[in-house]
């Protein structure tokens, strides 16, 4: 079963990456860009059939390893099949 974990800088925490990208986009002529936050996304393939259980497991993985919860938030979702 596929599950996605998205990790992003917490509100208020400095995001130098996002800032650098935003100003680069500005220089490249994408004047409409107002803000960029840079995060990570993990595409997991997990052995399991119960979406709730897989989601809970992914949440634990995020807390333990994938996100640095001191400065990052995360969310978990099971993508609908394409």
């Amino acid at each position, binding site marked *: 079963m596929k599950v996605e974990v998205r990790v992003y800088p917490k509100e208020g925490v400095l995001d130098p*990456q996002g800032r*650098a*990208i935003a100003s*680069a986009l500005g220089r490249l002529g994408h004047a409409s860009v107002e803000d960029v936050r*840079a995060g990570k996304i993990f595409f997991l393939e997990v052995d399991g059939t119960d979406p709730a259980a897989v989601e809970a497991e992914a949440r634990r993985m995020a807390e333990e390893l994938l996100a640095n919860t001191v400065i990052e938030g995360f969310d978990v979702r099971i993508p609908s099949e394409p």
Partner: protein
Amino acid sequence: MRGGKPKFAIVVFPGSNCDQDCHHVATELLGCDAEYVWHRDTDLKGADVVILPGGFAYGDYLRAGALARFSPVMEAVTRFAMDGGPVLGICNGFQVLLEAGLLPGAVRVNRGLRYVCKDVHMRVENASTAFTRLYEPGQIVKMPIGHGEGNYTAPPETLTGLEFEAGVVFRYCDAEGRVTDEANPNGATAGIAGIANREGNIVGLMPHPDRCAEGILGNDVGRKMFESAVATLATA
């Protein structure tokens, strides 16, 4: 060229940090002229050789080299390279050349996921580029690396092309010249440490010839890369 000595341009992006090291090699060690070219400049100040130095242009915040390739100076560098001018990208400079499409392929984060700074061995696979003609073919050279994203790869057809057209310039190997997995510091495909375009005037590599260009640093094998450019221009 003044007095038979070529002039080097050292391109400085915000976040370049081996610019002074390259300048030192060109001027103090080779006795050549060298000028820093700021990334917003649009001409290369009449240089004969262009060096894109190591560092962390724009912090490498998106991907190594990704933001730097849009600097205004890159247009001039591209024109210069297309006209056959010798261009060397070292470490971050190599990454910029890849992102700019002046050399094919891409680098990923090192296989061990850590930055690695140490000496490695490489075999000279092509000793006829503008920056390697003073080496012997097959020569084993020791140079330092210092990077977190040096894991070179490219689509299969590109790799085949590189191998066929002597595009691979340096390959990681052990002290005896064997290309092994243990001798590969970052997981680069086929142990590729440096490549060139077909004409051999554009060369990029992850290791640092600028950090091994004088005896006081315990190793001067890298100096030949700079001297090769001088020799190339002298015979041009």
